[in-house]
């Protein structure tokens, strides 16, 4: 692809020689990239997103260096890919790893300041039996103020000053229209300063127990009081009975001495807690071993059955004596063309115990509990996965078979080897050299084949009375899902930690597998 290395050194590339159009195309494209990059940088600055800003600045500088420098020719080809790798792979992985060390999940959804604001917001209650007032929003020397009419008196107050009577104000139909020394704000102005308006609390009197005036819509105001008082210095909330809720940075919650907590909490780092949960959660002790062994059984059997069927079909339909091979091959690939989750749903319907096509029509009204019996559910899963997976194996085996030189088979025939001997001693070993890495990949894929399990059986039949909603066909990844999401509360931190553990397991197995494959290659 590259245009330089074999050329005489003085010859410039299309994109460097200013007498050629290539240079100008490059210039225009780089201008566009720079314009977009600068736009992104400004937008990130506007949003106060410093991480994004730093990334964009760095990415743009590197882009300009790579595409205008003489030295970075490989970089020109690699850079876009590397950029996408950073955004879509590395960032995601780093973020997952970070989340795994936090308690991010239900009840710990946001940062601490947001949690404090929210607690104050939800504890602010309207005082029972108090009236609502038509309210006028005023601007008094830059300070926002409320004006209401109470018993034909006009009362005005702001954040500092409680409601006090103002003598010479004008009111019409119970609503204040004019206050000396202050401007009445119109809707558009109120809208621009809406956070100020909605955040304003005007004390009713000097006594804080009388509550304060607030509004939600800048038209009507009501008297409210907070159930909790926040003290910034000690970082505590105190309720009416005097119970003190102290911020606990280890849990990300405001907790009282008796252990009561306020909602919501906030996200904090919790170290390795999420990682150890899988091994310390007593609710998992029972089913964990059976789920682990079923995960291995499922992925190994899936690979073996699909490979065996795919290979048999490939060998048969590789024989020139079979008529209409292309049509058959095309038909075999059909299940592969189906989206897997869709096929799983269709099979789920087909296998329904009382109404499914298989029991009703194929088996003449039999009542086979495909999904409610543990063993049958496992068989159903392997069977459906066989249907889904054999076309892929058929494809790769067909390809690999055609790459094996015919002379080898001829030579074996000369030596007097029968068909079985030829298959086991020549075809299969040669096939495995090229197919083995794909088998390992298939194993890794099935180890985490969440969509099939989730769509086909949902992990069921559930272990009766198991302390977590997990069942006999759950594999590790769907168990994590059940634990981190289906058991009622979403726990992203736990889910991230567990997926990292599963990643390590799959990684180690794949690594061992690839080492074995290398030995196969050495046979060659």
């Amino acid at each position, binding site marked *: 692809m590259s245009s330089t290395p074999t050329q005489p050194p003085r010859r410039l590339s299309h994109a460097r020689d200013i007498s050629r159009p290539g240079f100008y195309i490059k210039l225009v494209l780089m201008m566009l990239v720079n314009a977009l990059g600068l736009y992104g940088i400004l937008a990130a600055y506007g949003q106060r997103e410093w991480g994004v800003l730093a990334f964009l600045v760095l990415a743009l500088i590197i882009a300009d260096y790579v595409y205008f420098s003489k030295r970075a020719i490989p970089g020109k080809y690699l850079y876009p890919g590397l950029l996408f790798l950073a955004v879509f792979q590395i960032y995601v992985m780093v973020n997952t790893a970070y989340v795994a060390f936090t308690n991010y999940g239900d*009840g710990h959804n946001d940062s601490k300041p947001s949690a404090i604001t929210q607690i104050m917001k939800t504890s602010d*209650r309207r005082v029972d039996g108090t009236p609502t007032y038509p309210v006028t929003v005023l601007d008094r020397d830059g300070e926002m103020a409320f004006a209401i009419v109470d018993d034909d008196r006009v009362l005005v107050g702001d954040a500092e000053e409680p409601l006090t009577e103002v003598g010479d104000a004008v009111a019409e139909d119970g609503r204040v229209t004019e206050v000396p020394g202050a401007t009445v704000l119109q809707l558009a102005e109120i809208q621009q300063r809406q956070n100020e308006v909605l955040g304003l609390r005007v004390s009713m009197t000097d006594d804080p127990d009388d509550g304060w005036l607030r509004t939600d819509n800048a038209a009507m105001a009501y008297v409210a009081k907070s159930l909790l008082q926040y003290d910034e210095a000690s970082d505590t909330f105190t309720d009416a009975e005097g119970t003190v809720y102290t911020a606990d940075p280890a849990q990300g919650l405001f907790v009282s001495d008796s252990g009561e907590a306020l*909602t919501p909490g906030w996200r904090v780092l919790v170290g390795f807690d999420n990682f150890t949960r899988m091994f310390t959660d007593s609710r998992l002790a029972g089913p964990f071993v059976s789920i682990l062994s079923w995960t291995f059984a499922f992925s190994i059997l899936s690979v073996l059955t699909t490979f065996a069927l795919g290979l048999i079909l490939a060998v048969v339909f590789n024989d020139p004596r079979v008529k209409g091979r292309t049509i058959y091959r095309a038909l075999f690939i059909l299940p592969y063309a189906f989206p897997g989750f869709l096929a799983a749903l269709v099979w789920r319907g087909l296998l*329904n*115990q009382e109404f499914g096509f298989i029991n009703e029509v194929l088996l003449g009204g039999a009542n086979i509990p495909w999904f409610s019996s543990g063993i049958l559910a496992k068989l159903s899963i392997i069977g459906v996965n066989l249907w889904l997976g054999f076309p892929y194996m058929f494809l790769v085996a067909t390809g690999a078979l055609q790459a094996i030189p015919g002379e080898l088979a001829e030579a074996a025939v000369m030596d007097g080897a029968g068909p079985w001997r030829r298959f086991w001693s020549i075809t299969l070993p040669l096939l495995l050299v090229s197919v083995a890495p794909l088998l390992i990949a298939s194993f890794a894929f099935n180890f985490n084949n969440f969509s099939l399990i989730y769509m086909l059986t949902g992990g069921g039949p559930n272990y009766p*009375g198991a302390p977590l909603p997990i069942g006999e066909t759950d594999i590790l990844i769907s168990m994590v899902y059940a634990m981190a999401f289906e*058991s009622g509360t979403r726990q992203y931190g736990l889910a991230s930690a567990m997926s990292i553990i599963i990643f390590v397991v799959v990684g180690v197995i794949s690594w061992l597998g690839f080492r074995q494959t290398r030995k196969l290659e050495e046979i060659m």
Partner: protein
Amino acid sequence: MRKSFLAAAAVGLSLTLAACGSGSSTSTPSATGDATTSAAATTSSAPAAAGSLTVWADETRIDAFKTLGETFSAETGVALDVVQKPSADIKNDFIAQVPTGEGPDLIVTAHDATGDLVKNGVVSPVELGDKAEAFGDVALRAVSLEGQVYGVPYAVENIGLVRNNALVQDTPATFDELIAQGKGVSGAEFPIVIQQGENGDPYHLYPLQTSFGAPVFKSDANGDYTAELGMAGPEGEAFAQYLKKLADEGVLSASIGGDQAKQAFLDGKSPYIITGPWWTGEFVDAGLDISVLPVPSAGGQPAAPFVGVQAVFLSSKSENQLLAQQFLDFMGTKETQDTLFEMGGRMPALNESADAVSDEILAGFGEAGAEGQPMPAIPEMGAVWQYWGGAEVSILTGKAEPVAAWQTLVTNLEAAFQA
């Protein structure tokens, strides 16, 4: 050839970048915020407010809210940008998006999300003021938590007993008699169909369960749910044994899911079905003559279904709180509730609008839900469904003894509340 390929690739790349750039910029809140304020500034002389609100609604509610948005913007000048979200994800997406500032201003969802939304601090309390009394009591309790209202309810729905009048014309007072009657109907395969499925469906069995005096959670003096399980103890176990009996008689089966139940009723294979207003339209369209009745009691006490409430919630991080409040006020008007009733076919939550509804089928559901209680919205409820359905299925399929299964259910739930 090579040059043109490279040029095409480069153009493609820059287009992709452009697409990414513009995509991310339009979705940032400040962009919309700026647009709002600048729009407001240019029309500052106009009396009406201007700007835009983003609302998330799922596929079943999107059309109604689009229509509503047109009325709203005609009245106030505020544009309503209704975004469709899949019903399965809408709550989780909202919880995940609000803290990032990328979430919508408002969300339309069923009230049982209230607990989760509050626990995660993503919704603002709503002060209905004196308007509160205009709403149905159950509807208002459904969107409240610990005495604070969090949403504006607009529709109420519950399940009831739907009868095919071509097969039977009168309905007995107890569930056992109903089954006996249903078994005598010639040509019917089932005395009654109640949808279950592989993971169970406690929602559709709940009227039977409450008739044994075993509500899911106990209520306090105000009628609010507490976190104490009401289905523990002998009442719940009696219901578990009744389930076993129904399964043995072939009345209930885990393999009858929603689609199968609906089809059986449509085909005239069952004189009764326990379902909600979401399917009665189809039954009527198919030419069935149906009546909706309260579910007969199985355990002696009144059968109380769950009442589901549709409501609009306000994001705690909305940058347009004031406009959003205007929309919430608009939601509470009779005209709006009438429009939503016409488009959605659910009982309005506003008493004034509900009283004006004359449809017989909906009135039947109203009667069936007269004893109903709001589906619990406390955060503990999130953990209940999975275990509850699992335990019921294990009883139906005979995998577990009813009383033992029920006791384990209670133990597991209590452990899950602790976790």
